[in-house]
């Protein structure tokens, strides 16, 4: 018995010693970690990711950035380039031998085309790792699983998320999950020609306040437009944009207290009373010769913009970006306007309330930075390090949202900043001066590519304009991010064209919209028709 006990104890010791040896060798051959936890401390997180990548033998991480929009909005992709440089610098300063290379900066003018391109190339793994586009496409991309759900990553960066305007963060969500970070937004003011207004006695200084209080409504717009036309002060009373892709005109629906989307049912809405009033206003303006009957087919560069900048209209419904577009494009007798001219010639207000008792509005179409759900796949060990690559992509977005990068984009493209910190920066004269001289800590490639835009657009007048219109975001509405909205918008466009040309009365046009919706089974399923044409409603 004693011998057995001695054997057992000896075996136990042997076992312990052996397991110790096994453990010892295990420590020496342990595989490098492939996981990182985001803490919210940006530098710490970047260093941690760098270390994991380095330990896994990765010294270069490749990403591509796709963007689209007007030519001045190049920071939509260069923001990514700059963010990558800033992260590289952190790694360099901390002796981490990893760097990010932005392999492709793909930028096209048409954001719809860019979206289609992304749709067809993403399943094949050829779409950009970063994709900036209208929030309107976000639900479809999220539904398809083409973009990354960053909700969990964003928890660690609550401070940053809270600095974005809340409505814009909401626009970056789908079914309660966050799929991107806002990149820019805009408002659509009602521009007023000061010289024409002066001729007819319209006080433009008090106008923004009156509009804000709902005292100046579309009936007043009609009154003054008519006065401008009849007195010969202007050829037209009002000019507006055209086409269904431009959601300016649906502001009328919101201004008349209507809605376009039902949160509860998830369906689009044809709000009959509001749509009728919108069409009636358009019809009345056009029939009285205050708005061109054929404006929906006018040419942007040869008709719409020259009519505005040459002072041939009292009012214009446009976007904030018009402010710099008029300076960089040759719409005024073959030249662009000087910043001083734009300031001296144009006043701007919110889009007035439809009628007394209602509120003024504006409309935004925020652009959102999204991450491809396959981001980083062109890099080695993608399957093992997928999570690390995705978190790094998120951190690039965090960096690209730095206030200065966002503020540069705002100033040079006349879009509104999406962060409160960026909004503060554009009011800072010293910073603005540094931007004008490109005396900022920016990537050389970025500097080279924005220098002529900076030269043309950076000045205190433009910055002041942006600061002045920022308040409009508090009144903003969004076009519905619904896959069938473009089809409905096309029908609205046809109806507007028909009432402007006098081919239909507003009532007939409303019936036309309803019939067209009901004739398309998919639209009929996705659209609710709400309310009746208001009897006894008069305008102005």
């Amino acid at each position, binding site marked *: 018995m004693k011998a057995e006990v001695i054997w057992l104890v000896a075996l136990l010791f042997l076992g312990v010693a052996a397991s110790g040896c096994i453990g010892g060798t295990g420590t020496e051959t342990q595989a490098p970690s492939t996981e990182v936890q985001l803490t919210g401390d940006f530098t710490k997180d970047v260093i941690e990711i760098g270390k994991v990548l380095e330990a896994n033998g990765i010294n270069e991480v490749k990403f591509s950035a796709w963007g689209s929009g007007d030519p001045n909005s190049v920071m939509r992709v260069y923001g990514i380039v700059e963010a990558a440089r800033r992260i590289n610098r952190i790694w360099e300063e901390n002796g981490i031998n990893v760097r990010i290379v932005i392999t492709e900066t793909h930028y096209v003018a048409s954001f719809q085309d860019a979206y289609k391109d992304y749709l067809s190339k993403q399943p094949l793994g*050829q779409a950009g790792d970063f994709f900036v586009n209208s929030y309107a496409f976000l639900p479809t991309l999220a539904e398809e699983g083409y973009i990354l759900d960053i909700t969990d990553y964003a928890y660690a960066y609550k401070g940053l998320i809270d600095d974005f305007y809340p409505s814009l963060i909401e626009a970056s969500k789908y079914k309660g999950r966050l799929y991107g970070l806002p990149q820019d937004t805009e408002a659509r003011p009602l521009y007023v020609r000061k010289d024409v207004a002066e001729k007819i006695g319209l006080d433009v200084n008090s106008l923004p306040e009156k509009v804000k209080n709902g005292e100046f409504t579309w009936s007043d717009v009609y009154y003054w437009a008519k006065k401008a036309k009849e007195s010969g002060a202007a050829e037209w009373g009002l000019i507006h944009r055209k086409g269904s892709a431009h959601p300016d005109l649906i502001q009328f629906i919101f201004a008349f207290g209507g809605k376009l989307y039902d949160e509860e049912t998830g369906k689009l809405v044809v709000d009959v009373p509001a749509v009728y009033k919108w069409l009636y206003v358009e019809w009345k303006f056009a029939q009285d010769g205050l708005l061109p009957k054929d404006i929906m087919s006018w040419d942007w560069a040869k008709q719409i913009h020259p009519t505005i900048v040459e002072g041939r209209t009292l009012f214009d419904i446009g976007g904030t970006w018009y402010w710099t577009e008029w300076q960089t494009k*040759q719409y005024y007798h073959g030249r662009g306007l000087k910043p001083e001219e734009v300031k001296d010639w144009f006043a701007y207000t919110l889009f007035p309330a439809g009628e007394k008792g209602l509120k003024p509005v504006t409309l935004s179409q925020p652009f959102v930075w999204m991450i491809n759900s396959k981001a980083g796949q062109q890099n080695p060990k993608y399957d093992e390090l997928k999570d690390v690559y995705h978190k790094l992509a998120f951190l690039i977005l965090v960096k690209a949202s730095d206030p200065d990068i966002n503020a540069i984009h705002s100033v040079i493209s006349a879009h509104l900043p999406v962060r409160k910190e960026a909004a503060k920066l554009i009011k800072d004269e010293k910073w603005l001066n540094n931007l004008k001289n490109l005396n900022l800590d920016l990537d050389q490639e970025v500097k080279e590519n924005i220098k002529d835009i900076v030269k043309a*657009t950076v000045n205190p007048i433009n910055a002041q304009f942006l600061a002045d219109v920022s308040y409009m975001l508090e009144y903003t509405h969004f076009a519905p991010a619904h896959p069938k909205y473009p089809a409905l918008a096309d029908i609205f466009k046809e109806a507007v064209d028909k009432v402007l040309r006098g081919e239909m009365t507003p009532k007939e046009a409303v019936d036309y919209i309803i019939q067209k919706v009901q004739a398309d089974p998919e639209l009929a399923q996705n659209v609710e028709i709400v309310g009746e044409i208001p009897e006894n409603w008069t305008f102005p």
Partner: protein
Amino acid sequence: MRDVETRPRKYEWAIILAVFFASLPLILGFSLLILSSFSTDMVTNLDLKSLHFTIENWINVFQGRLAITGGIRTNILRITLNTFIVALGVAGIVTLVSTMAGYSLSRIDFRGRKHLMVLLLLLHAFPGVALIVGVYLLYRLTFPQSPEMVRFYSFFYVVLARGALEIPMSVWLMKGFFDTVPWEFEWSGIIDGASRIKVWWKIMLPLVKPGILAVALFAFLAGWQDIIYVRTFLIDQTLATFIEANIEAEYSHMPLIAAAGTLYLVPTIIFFITAQQLLLQGYSGGIKG
């Protein structure tokens, strides 16, 4: 000797005038496009007041700039090269397949020949757009896993897919050309001991040169102007997709797009001018035996 003897000369001017007026919209359209490319504003009507001469648009196009200010520079030479690769690839594959298939259908009697010919006609009737879903599926199935190969493969695939659309009609065209070659030419070769392939290569092909040129030219133009296949499958841009992607009227500086459009026209014009005579021979469908 005149080619058409039956036509009275007195109507010649009437016909020329009629052809001129019929093609006037095209001539005007292209002229305005070319004029606009040298102007600060688009020249969109016959009133030439908006023509303010400048070569800035062309400079910007060659620098790959899309706007007067701003924009990301695009490598336009690379884009032009991509367009050439696709166009020449399509021309090559279509010419090779259709000269061989056309010869077989013209000269060799095999089982199912007639059915094959009918099928080819039927295939030609299918528009490329209708096939794109299936072609896309095939692309996904054959897609290489290695990211380095993707760019190369996308060129390869576009050339094959676009070429496949052109092949049915080209085979018919080539068959027509081979049909016009008298059998005696071939027999003499075969009697002398040449193989079928040798006869095809040494005797038949030189006799149908205008046909080959016509097929190659049309295939080249099909590849040059293709937009939907290129846009769906090719990773890189071609001139067609470059112009399309930047034509959004509100943002774009249209005279610059006009310059890109004119650049896009140049190879077509050069080809037609240089190959005109051979093409006419091809259309008259004959060889001089």
